[in-house]
C-alpha cells in the first residue's frame, strides 16, 4: 500500500517543463531516492511535496489524503535542507525545539524530546552551541535532529550531505541509514550523487529532464539499467558500438573480430553496455585487442584505459596484488555474455 503517491505530478515554469507527469509511490517506512543530474526536476519535485512550490498538474497523496490545499506548515513533514538552514540566532537545542514549540508540546516533554533527538544524532552535550560554532557535520546532525524530533510522517532530504567532505560524507551515510532504519521513518532523498543514492536507498528513482527513467532497488538498477541514461548515470559504463549477426547457436555480438553470444538480439547495428569491473584480461591473442593508454592506481583497485578498434574502453580491476599490464602493453579484453546488455543502435 502506497503511503506517499505522486500521480501525474507536473510543474511548468513558463514554457519550461521542469517536472513532466511524474508517477511514483513510496511505501510506509521505505527509503526512496530521487537521483539525477542538476536541472532534472528532482528538487522541484521535493519542493512540491513540501508545499513550497505549487504543482501545475497532478496530485500528491499522503496516506490517501490529497495534499493540495494543505499549507506547507500543516503538512507535518521533516525537511533537511542542502544548506541545513539552521536558525543562526538560536542554539542547537532551540533549533530542535522550534517545531515542538509550534506544536505546543508542553515544556517538560519538549526538553526531554530535544535531548533525546540530539542524543540520537550523537550530539548530546552540544545543546547550547550556536550553529556558527558547530562544524559542518555537526550542523548537519542538528538539522537532522530538528527534522526528526517532530516525528514527521515523511522525512525529506535535499542533498543533505553535499556540503560535507568525502570522508565525513561516508560516515554520515552509514549513520543516516541506521537512524532511518531504527525509526522507520518514510524517507525521500534528493541527490545527484549516485553513490549516496545506492548506499542509502531501498529504491532509486533515476530522473532525467523532468521524467523518471527507472525505479528499482539500487542493485537492480545498476545491474539492469532500463535506459542508456540510467546505465551511464549509475556508475561507470562502457558503450561499445558493434554489429549483431545470426550465428550457428543464435545471434552473436561482433566487435572487431571478437564475438560473444547475444541472446534475443535482433540482427543489425547494436550498442553493448558493459561495466568496467566486469571486463577481464584474456589470454594472449584472444578477446578484443587493445593497447593500454593509461593506468591509475586507486588503492583498492586499478583503473585502466585501453585503446581498441571500438574506441576507448575503461577497465577496473580489483587490486589482488597481481601484476597489471603497463602503459603501451598489448592486451586482449573479454567479458561474460551475461554481463553485457545489447541494444539496437539508434539510427
Amino acid at each position, binding site marked *: 500500500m502506497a503511503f506517499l503517491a505522486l500521480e501525474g505530478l507536473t510543474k511548468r515554469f513558463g514554457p519550461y517543463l521542469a517536472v513532466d507527469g511524474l508517477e511514483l509511490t513510496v511505501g510506509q517506512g521505505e527509503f526512496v531516492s530521487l537521483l539525477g543530474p542538476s536541472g532534472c526536476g528532482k528538487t522541484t519535485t521535493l519542493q512540491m511535496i*513540501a508545499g513550497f512550490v505549487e504543482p501545475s498538474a497532478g496530485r500528491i497523496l499522503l496516506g490517501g489524503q490529497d495534499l493540495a490545499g494543505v499549507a506547507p506548515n500543516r503538512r507535518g513533514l521533516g*525537511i533537511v535542507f542542502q544548506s541545513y538552514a539552521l536558525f543562526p540566532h538560536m542554539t542547537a537545542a532551540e533549533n530542535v525545539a522550534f517545531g515542538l514549540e*509550534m506544536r505546543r508540546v508542553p515544556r517538560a516533554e519538549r526538553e526531554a524530546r530535544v535531548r533525546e533527538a540530539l542524543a540520537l544524532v550523537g550530539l548530546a552535550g552540544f545543546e547550547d552551541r550556536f550553529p556558527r560554532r558547530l562544524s559542518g557535520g555537526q550542523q548537519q546532525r542538528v538539522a537532522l535532529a530538528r527534522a526528526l524530533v517532530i516525528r514527521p510522517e515523511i522525512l525529506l532530504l535535499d542533498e543533505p550531505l553535499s556540503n560535507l567532505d568525502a570522508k565525513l560524507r561516508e560516515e554520515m551515510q552509514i549513520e543516516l541509514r541506521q537512524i532511518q532504519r531504527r525509526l522507520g521513518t518514510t524517507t525521500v532523498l534528493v541527490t545527484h550523487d549516485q553513490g549516496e543514492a545506492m548506499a542509502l536507498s531501498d529504491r532509486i528513482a533515476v530522473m532525467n529532464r523532468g521524467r523518471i527513467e527507472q525505479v528499482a532497488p539500487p542493485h537492480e538498477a545498476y545491474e539492469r539499467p532500463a535506459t542508456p541514461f540510467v546505465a551511464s548515470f549509475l556508475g561507470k559504463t562502457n558503450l561499445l558500438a558493434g554489429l549483431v549477426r545470426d550465428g550457428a547457436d543464435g545471434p552473436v555480438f561482433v566487435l572487431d573480430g571478437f564475438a560473444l553470444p547475444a541472446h534475443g538480439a535482433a540482427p543489425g547495428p547494436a550498442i553493448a553496455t558493459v561495466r568496467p569491473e566486469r571486463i577481464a584480461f584474456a589470454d594472449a591473442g584472444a578477446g578484443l585487442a587493445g593497447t593500454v593508454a593509461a593506468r591509475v592506481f586507486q588503492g583498492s583497485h586499478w583503473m585502466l584505459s585501453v585503446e581498441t578498434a571500438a574506441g576507448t574502453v575503461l577497465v577496473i580491476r580489483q587490486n589482488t596484488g597481481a601484476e597489471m599490464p603497463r602503459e603501451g602493453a598489448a592486451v586482449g579484453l573479454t567479458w561474460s555474455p551475461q554481463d553485457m546488455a545489447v541494444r539496437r543502435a539508434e539510427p
Partner: protein
Amino acid sequence: MNRNGWIALTFHALFIVFILAPIVVVCVVAFTPEGFLSYPTHTWSLRWFRAIARYPEFVDAFFASLWLGLLSSAIAVALSVPAALAIARHRFPGREAITALFLSPLMIPHVVLGIAFLRFFTEIGLGGTFAGLVISHVVIVLPFALRLVLASAAGMDRAIENAAVSLGASGLTTFRRITLPLIAPGVASGWALAFIQSFDEVTMTVFIAAPGTTTLPVRMFLYIQDNIDPLVTSVSAAVIALTVLFLIVLDRLYGIERLLAGRAVGQDDR
C-alpha cells in the same frame, strides 16, 4: 599585499588634511574667548557654548530636529521592512519601477522636492505644519532605510524561512521568530542612517519649515546667511561632536562603508 609608498602616503596625508580642515576649524574657533571670529591663541573659552542656552531658537530647533528625525526614521523603517521583503522575495509586475520610485528621492534634487512639497502642502492645508515636515522627511529618508533592509533581506537564505514553515510555523510566526531577528542588523542601521539623514537635511526643509517648526540645520543656515559669528560656530561644533559620537557607535556596530554603500562590500581584510 604591498604597503603604500611614500608618494601615496604624502598624498593621503594631504587628503586627510583637506577632509578634516574645515571640520577642525569650526571646532577650534568655537572655543574662542573673543567676541568675534578668531582662533583661541591664548586661552580656550566655553563662553560661546554657554551662550547657546540663551538663544532658545537654537535649542528649540534642536529638539524639533530630534523629534522629526526619530519620528520620520521610525515611520520610514516601518514602511521599508515589508516593502524590502516584497522586493527581495517576490516577482511581481512593476517591481523594478516601484523600486526605482522608492529610491528616486536619492536622485531628485532636494530643491525640486522642497518646491513640490511646498506647493502640495499649501494646497492640502498642511503648509508649515510639523505633520507636513514628518511626511516629507519620511519620503526623503526612506531610500536609505530601504537599501539597507533590502541588502540584509536579499542576503538571507530563503531555506531558513522554509525550514521554519516546514516545522509548522505560520507566516506571522516565521516573520516574528526568524525573519525579523535575522534582518535586525540591517533594520537597525537603516534606522540610524535614516535618522541622521533627517537630522541633517536642510535643502528641502528650508522650503517647508515655518518659524514654529524650523529644524536645527535650517536655523543654522538662515543664521549664517545673515552673519557668521562665534555663536553659530559653537552650535556647529556641538552638532559635529554629536554626529561624530553617533558615527563611532555606528561604525563599531555595523561598519561605516557597509552603511553608506547600502550593501555588504566584503571582508575587511582580504
